[in-house]
């Protein structure tokens, strides 16, 4: 379960940003999670709930934006159904993955600045 160590890295990054900008409170953070990011959203959320107590993120809302994984042919753009063989039957091209399918990104922090 690597979600906990990811959350710790996330919290310390957010705390740095809040300190740098003289914020009194972190109101919310927005994280993008791709379906192939290797992160389980439920585990990620429970690790967040456990780890944020006593940190600069104690009162912050975690907003998760999930990105589906979609494979398509880079030539004819045909979209593959889940579970398909990942090579285009017409073009013989290996499938390509959409942007964000492996995202594990801190997109935004919302800070209260006096």
């Amino acid at each position, binding site marked *: *379960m*690597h979600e906990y*160590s*990811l959350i710790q*890295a*996330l919290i310390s*990054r957010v705390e740095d*940003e809040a300190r740098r*900008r003289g*914020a*009194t*409170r972190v*109101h919310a953070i927005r*994280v993008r999670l791709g379906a*192939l*990011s*290797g*992160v389980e959203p439920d585990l990620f959320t429970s690790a967040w709930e456990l780890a944020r107590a006593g940190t600069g993120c104690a009162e912050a809302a975690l907003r998760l934006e999930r990105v589906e994984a979609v*494979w398509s042919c880079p030539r004819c753009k045909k979209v593959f159904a889940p*579970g*398909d*063989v*990942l*090579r285009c039957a017409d073009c013989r091209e*290996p*499938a*390509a993955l959409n942007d964000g399918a492996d995202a*594990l*990104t*801190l*997109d*935004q*922090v*919302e*800070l*209260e*600045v*006096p």
Partner: protein
Amino acid sequence: MCQTCGCGDAALVPVELHERILAENEKTARHNREHFVGAGVLAVNVMGSPGSGKTALLEATARGAAAKGWRLGAVSADLATDHDARRLAAAGIPSRSITTGQACHLDAELVHRALHDFPWREADVFFIENVGNLVCPAIYDLGQAANVAVLSVTEGEDKPLKYPVMFQAVDLVVVTKCDLVPHLDVDLAKLHDALARVMPAPRAIELSAKTGQGVDAWLAWLEEQRAPFAAAEGAPAHGHGHGHGRGHGPGGHEHG
């Protein structure tokens, strides 16, 4: 202060970051990669379930590498014990163990620390044997040139479908313990079909560390990965310089 109505409340300031959460790890991984490439060392991250045969694969590699004139090196990760590193050392691979405690994966910093005071630069091929786990190691870049998943025939043909993130992240799958196939109900065609549904360009080698089946194909794959490094070094396999960032590593060979 709130500028809208002058109420004196703190203002909510949205700050756009768009940063990878693993940015710190990736920075250290880039540093490791510069070291490996600069010293002409092919670094291979070996992943797979506990008991899939990662250590046995490296032992079999040691037997074949001697004939090729390659020097090997390895770091081997486990939650506890240094048994794997001892096995590798007994097989003639200079090794160091990384005990991760509770951590279920290696990260770039653990690898970086293990490289200190260890003669990794002497190696032509350097293996990073990850913690036995098909989930967490997949998303941590360590600075390797190539990722390998070890999957034994006893694990079931649908393993790749269950762990798509891992299999999608690797350059090669080594299917191990193939000497057991006649004794099992496993259908290797189904296993290859499963790989084709999670890897756009699947590449797999069927191997038995016990009988030696497939070891030549594995060594040939390593040789192929090593080619840009060997060329950068100016052919002879030994006598690596210590200069970092010599700037003639394998072009376009960034993975994950």
